[in-house]
């Protein structure tokens, strides 16, 4: 086993309806909210404890909804939060997708989730490229969505 493991301290999984129009609303992913709640509860952490986050930005709006669903900003404020540089590496909130996210890599299915964990490891052990290394990153969160919200997983990772 590695002498520097990254531990999964929190885990949440949730599903949602197959048909998007069977959901109570179209402006968030219920699966993300429930999976995040489970992950925070099982790890004893909350959104404000997260130092670096990787969210499932299959599409731009998915990232903005994730800020809200994961508790990084207030419900309905995702757009404004982005304009205020909240999720930027040098911004006031949790740095999100400092590796460029899914979209920057063309979102290869399956591999994107692994890519998130690989980058979380680099961040937590301080081996990421200088310009995108989050200072003192310790608690990472990985958020991964299947299809359009039918399956969501949230991991909390710590050294």
């Amino acid at each position, binding site marked *: 086993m590695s002498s520097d493991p990254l531990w999964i301290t929190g885990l949440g999984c949730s599903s949602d309806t197959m048909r998007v129009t*069977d959901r109570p609303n*179209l402006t968030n992913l219920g699966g993300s909210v429930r999976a995040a709640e489970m992950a925070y509860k099982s790890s004893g952490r909350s959104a404000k404890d997260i130092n670096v986050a990787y969210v499932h930005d299959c599409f731009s709006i998915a990232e903005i909804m994730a800020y809200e669903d994961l508790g990084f900003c207030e419900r309905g404020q995702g757009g404004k939060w982005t304009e205020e540089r909240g999720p930027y590496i040098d911004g006031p909130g949790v740095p999100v997708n400092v590796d460029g996210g899914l979209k920057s890599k063309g979102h290869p299915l399956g591999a994107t989730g692994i890519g998130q964990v690989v980058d979380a490891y680099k961040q937590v052990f301080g081996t990421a490229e200088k310009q995108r290394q989050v200072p003192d990153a310790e608690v990472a969160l990985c958020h991964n969505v299947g299809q359009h919200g039918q399956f969501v997983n949230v991991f909390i990772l710590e050294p």
Partner: protein
Amino acid sequence: MSEPQLGLVQELSSDVKHRQRMTAEFRKFIDGLKEGKFLATECKSCGKKFMPPRFTCPCGGKDLKWFEVNPEGTLYTWSIVHFAPEGIAKKTNVPYAVGVIEFEDNLLLTGHLKGLTSKPKVGMKVKIEPQELDSGDLAYFIKPA
């Protein structure tokens, strides 16, 4: 924004046809569409309604009855698409409008918007209308009522 040229899906590609495996139950929905009717199902155990129809209920119920939906409703939400997906339509005029119509009982259905004379507005009266495409496939569109 300038008024978009509102196009409609011209035909479905052949691989979509191959993927359509229709059960006898669902065929009743398609036959209804051909007669200009929108049929839905209701769970006899819990009363939940499904449009398009479903034949098992998340409550565990397996006994559902058919009912007809009034094709008129209101526009729940809408968006303009500027980049048509490949493999779904061979010829699609972009940009085109999509939306969700809300029927009675809060039933929602996604579809292409057609026949708009001005920018779509949430809450506007719309209706759903079936249409046979040149390819022989059946589609439905959401139009102003």
